[in-house]
């Protein structure tokens, strides 16, 4: 008999922090879970405390990018109502995927074009400065044994502290700041990146990697075992070919 697995995701400020289709991440994560027979329940959590869901129950958090104005709008709420939950989640090896503006909020601070400081929650040690010239284009990043791809579009330049681990090294594109070849950041199971795309549909292997972490944490079972238990065959045909269609990145894939 098939075993039922259930995971809980929280999508933070989905109506505000979603500028370049970042909601594709929870969508695709849910879709991918469903292929493995895992039921993913997604809760949108916006301003203040959410009453429908105890945020401590979440296995994974998502946050996307936003325009400057929108980022400025949420950061007070973010620090007041979300910081402690996320810090606890980080300690408990829960997962977070933060894109672009969301990623910046997980760093120490963000300095906007008009020199306003937006404080972050310091999950990642480093800061961001905004510049007028935007860093735009397809991007490929080497992260351990895999190549991650996406589309970046950001005015912010993020500089990580020496001890802060980056998500990967830029093969093509700009990454954190267009200078030192780093892209994104990782602390525990919290991942920050500038890659839109949406990110997970473009990187199904990374998506599976996150699902695996969540399953191990909650059910002490690996994705590989689930695939066996549930007798699943996955067809990644579209996903593999979609990556190969990105003309700029051909020679890195």
């Amino acid at each position: 008999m098939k075993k039922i697995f259930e995971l809980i995701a929280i999508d933070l400020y989905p109506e505000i922090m979603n500028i370049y289709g970042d909601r594709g991440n929870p969508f695709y994560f849910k879709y991918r879970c469903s292929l493995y027979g895992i039921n993913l329940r997604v809760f949108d959590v916006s301003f203040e405390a959410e009453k429908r869901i105890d945020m401590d129950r979440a296995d994974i958090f998502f946050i996307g990018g936003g325009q400057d104005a929108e980022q400025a709008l949420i950061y007070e709420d973010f620090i007041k109502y979300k910081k402690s939950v996320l810090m606890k989640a980080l300690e408990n090896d829960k997962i977070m995927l933060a894109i672009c503006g969301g990623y910046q909020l997980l760093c120490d601070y963000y300095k906007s074009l008009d020199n306003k400081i937006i404080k972050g929650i310091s999950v990642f040690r480093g800061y961001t400065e905004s510049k007028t010239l935007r860093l735009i284009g397809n991007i490929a990043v080497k992260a351990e044994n895999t190549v991650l791809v996406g589309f970046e579009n950001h005015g912010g330049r993020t500089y990580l502290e020496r001890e802060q681990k980056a998500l990967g090294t830029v093969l093509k594109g700009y990454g954190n700041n267009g200078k030192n070849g780093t892209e994104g950041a990782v602390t525990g199971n919290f991942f920050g990146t500038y890659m839109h795309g949406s990110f997970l549909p473009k990187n199904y292997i990374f998506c599976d990697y996150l699902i695996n972490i969540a399953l191990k944490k909650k059910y002490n079972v690996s994705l590989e075992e689930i695939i066996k238990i549930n007798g699943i065959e996955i067809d990644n045909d579209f996903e593999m070919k979609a990556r190969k269609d990105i003309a700029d990145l051909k020679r890195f894939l």
Partner: protein
Amino acid sequence: MILRLKIKAEIILYFFLKYILNNVFNREGDVLPVHILKKIDKDTFDNFASYIHSYGIPIIFVTGTNGKTTTANLIADTLRAAGKNVCVNSNGANMSNGVFGAIIGSYGLSTIDRLLGLDFQFNADFIVIEADEKVFPYLSSKLMPNVVVITNFYRDQLDRYGEINTTVFEIKRAIKNLSGDTMLILPSFEPLAMSVGYGINNPRIYYGFKREFFKEKQCQERAVSSDALTCPYCKKVLFNRKDVNQNVFLLKFKCENCGFTNIEPDIYISGYKGEKIIIKSNKIGAEYDGKTDGALYSDFKPALSGDYNMANYLAAYSVLKNYKIKNDIIIPSFENFQTKFGRSFKKYVGDLEINIDLVKNPTGLSRVLEKITDVYNNDLPFIDILFAFSDRDADGRDVSWIWDVEFEKYVKDIGKIIITGLRPFDMAIRLKTAGVDKSLISIEHNLKKSLKKIIKIGRSQVSSNKKVFILSTYTELLRIKKYIM
């Protein structure tokens, strides 16, 4: 004003190049001739612009994210029906080169005398310009429009333009630099575009909808959505409920912080009368029609479907009323309007109706899906679609926008899908994630073959109203046109 010799030479060169492109290379030549002129004479735009000012012809600009081409052509066609000569960049070539191409192309030699003297005359009583949002400030500073129409501001090609708030800010600043008489024609249902009229004293007409228009279609989740999440005025939250942004037309909105609020439209669609839509205004007819007997009223049977096209009709109507064009000219023009290729365009191949729409951003594609799945327009159980989806510069290089389209809402209506273009698999993943069965999706990289396939699918439909839908990004649309027309 007599044209200087250099200008005459440039006009001749323009027509020569355009002729070569049209006849030798079989291309439209909306942009390239001007590109070459500009290489030869970098002041060419300034020179033409100063002649245009000296003629004192009314200049109407249409800008915004979606609906520019249709709105500009509704205005231009109706002005022509009123007996006016109109200069318009009708094919949607809306960057500087396309705009000045249309202007230079409106010069002509009308009489033998002029031919002998070789003096050109500007053959237009009105200039109607569809202006790209990003180029608007430049074009506006050169041509100084008398009327500015804004359709809406949605997310579009952010890889090229950065953030939409910045674009709107620049447009508003450009309008402030014009004379304070410039008439603004603004939507009342889209906060970001509406905000352009906030805090400035220019004369303005707001166009919009009354709730009854949507009620009569018995549908609560309607049409006119918005990307404005923060208040355009004070930057605080305007909506913090997801569904408000995604599904509900914005008849009413109010910023709790600064009081920025929707404005009751001056000219509006109030509802249906059979197949006709009713346009009204609470202002007396005298203001718009020269009549003194009561409020403005028109009804007509639209040639276009889709609520977003009703908004285009309203915008055009507001402009035409501003120039006191009579209803007996406007109504037949609106009812017989022929769209440009890729804008609610229909073509018959035998008994198969092929519908072609340009899709370039989430709002546009959502509205097209809504239109083609609407039972009012379509009695087929499932819709068969060809997506032509590419990421060339003019399409926007970032394909992530398809994740912002509510495909989930339309999965039950979707039949067979063919996908072509440079990025077909990204679209395939999006559809698969939305719940479209993989077996319904097939990829065909070759455009011509993909067209043949969708036509074959259409012909095999068991229906007396066979229909297929082609939804295409910009560069693929140009290629499709060659095969279809």
